[in-house]
């Protein structure tokens, strides 16, 4: 089939919007990243000073390491959980519509309100989760005092908030796997595990990649979970890149530094995500050309 020339314009509206709303302003931000700029002051060209400042700032690297750890924990944690729950749902559950809605609710909750409730549950000394941990004989989560405990609860709350994202994509992909494929595998004598591994997974792999890629991109900008729970503390040890950026942009109004951080964030995301990008290219765009 020879598609009409005009067909190549199909993505045009989407591309125009992304370019107009994000890409072009991002170019202006690129210019800003070489300046010193704030409210009520003259913008001044400073060359690479902003980048030099950030790269030599210990807080940036703490934030970078924290982000890298937390992002990996939540992306893979969510993937495994979402896959397990999607399989559970696809196998049939009672009150399916209700259950599906319940599963989605965390995603629908205002993040601010959700964090208030989690803070209440995680309250040191008296929170429900603190009490449950104590009753199970487990060590307390000293999340206000200890960096790793802080990052643990940040990851926990983030997974709670965003698990439905990965779940929706995987579940939709899973239920669109043709029955015939699974039945054919059974007829050929495949076990449940073999069917899952060699029939279902390859079929939903593109969806898994899309889910992981975007979750990865969004997780890199995780903000509310950190800012509202630990505030990046104690002593800025649980800061992530998005809170670092927010501090510069919205608290300090150092627009030059914030712009430079924004671009560094893009580069960092791109480098770390290149593996997924390549997989997406190889598996979904290249070989069936």
């Amino acid at each position: 089939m020879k598609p009409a020339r005009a067909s190549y314009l199909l993505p045009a509206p989407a591309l125009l919007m992304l370019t107009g709303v994000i890409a072009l302003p991002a170019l202006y931000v690129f210019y800003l990243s070489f300046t010193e700029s704030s409210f009520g002051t003259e913008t001044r060209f400073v060359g690479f000073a902003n980048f030099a400042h950030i790269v030599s700032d210990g807080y940036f690297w703490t934030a970078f390491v924290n982000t890298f750890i937390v992002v990996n924990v939540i992306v893979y944690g969510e993937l495994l959980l979402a896959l397990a729950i999607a399989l559970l749902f696809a196998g049939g559950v009672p009150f399916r519509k209700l259950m599906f809605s319940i599963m989605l609710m965390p995603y629908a909750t205002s993040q601010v309100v959700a964090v208030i409730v989690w803070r209440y549950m995680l309250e040191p000394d008296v929170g429900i989760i603190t009490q449950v941990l104590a009753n199970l004989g487990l060590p307390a989560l000293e999340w206000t005092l200890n960096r790793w405990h802080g990052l643990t609860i940040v990851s926990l709350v983030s997974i709670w908030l965003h698990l439905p994202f990965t779940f929706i994509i995987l579940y939709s992909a899973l239920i669109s796997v043709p029955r015939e494929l699974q039945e054919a595998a059974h007829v050929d004598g495949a076990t449940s595990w073999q069917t899952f591994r060699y029939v279902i997974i390859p079929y939903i792999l593109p969806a898994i990649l899309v889910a992981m890629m975007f979750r990865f991109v969004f997780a890199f900008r995780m903000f509310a979970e950190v800012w509202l729970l630990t505030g990046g503390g104690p002593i800025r040890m649980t800061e992530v890149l998005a809170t670092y950026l927010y501090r510069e942009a919205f608290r300090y109004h150092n627009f030059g530094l914030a712009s430079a951080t924004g671009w560094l964030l893009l580069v960092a995301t791109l480098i770390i995500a290149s593996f997924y990008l390549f997989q997406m290219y190889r598996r979904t765009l290249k070989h069936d050309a």
Partner: protein
Amino acid sequence: MTRLKTVGLAALAFAALASQAWAQSKELNVIGHAVHQRAMGSGEANLTNPWQSATGTKVNWITFDIPALYERLMREASLGETTIDVAFLLNSQANENVFNLLEPLDELQKANPIEDMDDVFPGMVEAMKHDGKLYAIPFRHTPSGLHYNEEYFKERGIAGPPKTVEEMFEYAKKLTYTRADGTKVAGLIFTGNHPANIVDIARAWDGDFLTLKYELAMTRPPMIKAITALKGLFDAGAYPKNFMTLKSDDIDTWMQTGRAAMAVSTISKSKNYNDPKNSQFPGKLKVVNLPISAELAGKYQVAPAKVEFWSMVIPKNSKNKALAWDFIRHVMAKDSILKSALNGNGSVRSSVYERQEYSSQVPWAEVEQKVLKVARVPVPPLAKAPEAIDIFLEGYQAAILGMKSPQAAMDEVASRVKPLLPK
């Protein structure tokens, strides 16, 4: 081409949505916090009603929470032209960069003065001047006090509120206990995401973080004594483990639900703390002045606690400056300030405290009046204040958690804050 039609329709739908009415001429746009709108009163009782009908102007309120309000004002004031005519600004946000974007008010005041300007607390007015020009008119203040749970004091056999800060620390330890019903009580709490209340404690020794002359006061004995004492409370469990995450609404909740025995916070919060709807201890949460150290007993009657205040400003790029000034004049008139004070607004006019209608309705009027005579702002106007504050909080946390000695922590803070100060 069906596809093109679809795209065209979508574009049309856009255009239709986009063509919405823009601001009209005889309107005044005021950007503030909901608390300012509430201070004006609601419905028939709104104190700006006479002004609105006399001038044929409709006042539109645009309200935000505090950081959002400032952010929005700055963005609007940086445009070529803004629709914002009057805005509310906190004293700590007033610095030379901000003043650059605001209209100087001296000419307006000369031509059409505010009633009895000398009655407005002079310290506050003075703080809103830069290079000899006045940029903002104070409207509302929020001085700190010590709130305490009377029932808990009785349970622990403490007769009354502390008279000195030394007593306050001692009581805080005594008041850290588990009640018969299982409630765990912390002795003393205050917000940990801002230095204001930490400065409040240091004020017991007349201390500071930064003085009004930008001296690095955090390394001096008063602040070190305050931090050392607070570390003692923290180690004794009397100052909560999550002190650094406590925001002002957490302090409220802790007091209202009886999780703390004493709190340093804004005096007028007393109303909310004793509201039976929100509080489990209505009528039992008293407020007094923050106590002074025994060392300074002769010098001060009460600690020179922190006061913060809100002022009204006019963006330089507003199109309605005359009207905006007239609105400010009306809101600042003696009668208006009294009315707003009765609506719960901290009065910037000292004459209001002499009015019987006020003192009979507001139980903490005397406490406020006492502290206002000596109170001063927690942080001087500083363009880099947010950075300085974060550095201070970091050092404070390190000292309380025992990672550094208070003096070492504050010395480091001083060296990092120094480059941020005005030259």
